[in-house]
């Protein structure tokens, strides 16, 4: 089946579902058939979250993908990116937000958070390219820690030749109108980061 497969992973509360909504919407605007699947529910309380998105020229059946089937991963958190590594094709690319969110098991000393060097090293063994991005720093620079997701969407948009207006329209559709301006700034900031990678 011919499709572009995305995986978005992170920690509940980081805005991954909005990001997956945007990626899906852009796919539809760009003329693809689209399916996506989110895991919600209990996972929103600081748990691991994951979304699958598929764009296809032909009809798509399953909204989910399996091991070694993902082309592009948007990892909102390094440990979560590592956790999902085996979803990636060898030729795959990972955009990695470097913002660490240690799980409670690490905070309480029961488990150890792997070092950034180790995470990047393992990721690079698994895929063709890894692009570390400090989206949180950019979001804080814009004065709102919650726009990390849109910074990352901005970075992702530079991986495609799709009209940036499609991306902006999709951002507009899924963020609260009250915060549209800062989100559009975040998108542009993400595009700048993407262009420099």
């Amino acid at each position, binding site marked *: *089946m011919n499709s572009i497969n995305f995986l978005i992973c992170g*920690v*509940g*509360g980081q805005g991954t579902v909005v990001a997956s909504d945007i990626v*899906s*919407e852009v796919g*539809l605007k760009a003329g693809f058939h*689209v*399916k*996506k*699947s*989110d*895991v*919600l*529910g*209990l*996972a*929103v*309380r*600081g*748990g*691991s979250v994951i979304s699958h998105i598929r764009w296809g020229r032909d009809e*798509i*059946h*399953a*909204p*989910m993908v*399996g*091991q*070694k089937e993902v082309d592009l991963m948007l990892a909102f958190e390094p*440990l979560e990116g*590592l*956790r999902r*590594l*085996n979803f990636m094709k*060898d030729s795959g690319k990972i955009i990695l937000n470097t913002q660490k*969110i*240690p*799980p*409670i*098991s*690490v*905070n*309480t*000393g*029961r*488990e*150890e*958070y*792997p070092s950034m060097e180790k995470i990047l090293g393992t990721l690079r*063994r*698994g895929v063709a390219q890894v692009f570390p991005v400090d989206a*949180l720093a950019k979001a*804080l620079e814009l004065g*709102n*820690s*919650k726009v990390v997701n849109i910074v990352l969407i901005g970075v992702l948009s530079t991986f495609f030749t799709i009209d940036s207006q499609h991306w902006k329209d999709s951002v507009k559709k899924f963020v*609260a109108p*009250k*915060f549209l301006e800062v989100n559009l700034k975040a998108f542009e900031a993400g595009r700048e980061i993407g262009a420099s990678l």
Partner: protein
Amino acid sequence: MKVLLTGNEAIARGAFEGGVAVACGYPGTPSSEILETVARDYRDSVYAEWSVNEKVAMDVAAGASYSGVRSMVTTKLVGMNVLSDSLFYLPYTGLEAGLVVVVCDDTGMFSSQNEQDNRWYSILGKIPMLEPSDSQECKDMVVEALRLSERFDTPFLIRSEMRIAHSKSEVILGEREKEIPLPKNFPRDIQKYNCNALFARKKREVIVRRFHDLKEFSETSNLNRVILQDTQMGIISSGIVYEYAREVFPSASFLKLGMIHPLPERLIRDFAKRCKTLIVIEQLDPFLETQIKALGIEVKGKEIFPPYDEILPEKMRECAEKAGLLKPSSPKKVIDLGDLPTRAAVFCPGCPHRATFYALSKLKVPVMGDIGCYNLGSLPPFNAQHTMGSMGASIGQLHGVSVSGCPERAVATIGDSTFFHAGMPPLVNMVHNRSKGVVILMDNSTTAMTGHQDHPGMNKTLMGVSTERVDIQQLVEAMKVKFVKSVNAFDVKEVENTLKECLAWDDGPAVMITKGECIFVSRKPKPAYSVDLNKCVACETCLKVGCSAVVKSEEVNPKNKRKKARIDPVLCNGCGVCSQVCPTGAIFQTQELEAKE
């Protein structure tokens, strides 16, 4: 117009297009977004409400349908057990206007206490059932079910599941039906609408005849489709797993069932005859397989695919290869990631439940738990909610512990919405039967776990209309509980001391109401806290409040060689619980409030 909708949004759209006038239910993952979408997008055409529980919702829909308008009930899988009592009278009474019940199963148990396969309810309740496999079918089947409900004078069930509910796919939108039933004077048709055994007995035959007619309808309905390709292998399937199967067996022939009760017998026999090998692919129980085998047709199913958990495309391929249905694919080179730290869900920073579980954990009392965010208190570092089974079970269990002669004084934890749903009868039961035990009513002013829906303790309805707030303390007092005290959920000392008072109470049950808004309700984070590293001795007491904002710093206390604490200012919502438990007063509130949303 073509749009992307989740299964839940598509069902809401179907309710709109199909002319539903009344939609109700109780929140529960993965079904909650259906009514939220109705209330948000179709409020001008459809009345939507969160009813106090699923059974009440079912009766509301029945009343609306008897009054001549189309209605819909939504529920998560286990809510079917609650509403079935009322659902089961409807095939006997029939209705004046279409009624559809949408149940969202949770195959894989992402957020439910069991993995029940609700397809069996169709057989048990004698109710026809449809099963969509994508968002387009979700929408279309709601519209179709409403029409069929009127045509056959019976409620219809639609079975969705998590991967349909929370997946998006393309949907072509239609218009709202023009000719829909309108409200009318209530029918005084006692023989039809009163299930007195005298009248209901006569309906048994009606139901049998109806099923004969439904079966005939199913044989030719385009709800069921044959996709004839290579006839070496024929696959009978339905729902989301049909979509997976199309991907795993791209060249096989398919009988795709949209109507899964009653089954189209002739269509199945005909398809079976055309195919050399016949396979049933279904998740959970052998629901289709058992019935098809009963027709005397040779078919394989559960001997190939497991009867529990999801059968995702990857799993399906693996099972099919093992059974020799597919050629073995080359093994995938996966990287050994070692043991990665787990990431369990936790109470949000600023959660009003934190102080209570800190106290429960400290006092080491047995805790009967209930369903809601507070069940996270069963996980480390608290390990303090020892049971959880079903809505409202905590208080009934507490009474059972009390009358058992168990030497320990026990506690029940139950949230405000869960209390209204199923906690009031067992509390009244405790009072009447002179029980002892502590009920902690955790009032966070919302139905939090399922996404912050309203309930009778709040002053706004789903439609955004102002309403009377039911006062929980007055309610409990009216039940004649003699010890009732409300406390500030964020005050660690007040919570602990009141809990101790409750545990010592001997004159019937004692109720402590912990009052503190869910951080998603108040939306008013206070300035973040910070750690004075000169005062911090790295005793790690603050880590026992289980907050993801409280982390270890890089600074070590040379005396105990432990890392001192640090508070992540981005995550901290300023509740101050960690600061209250700090024995050296090292945690203080900063002045700056970081912009959050």
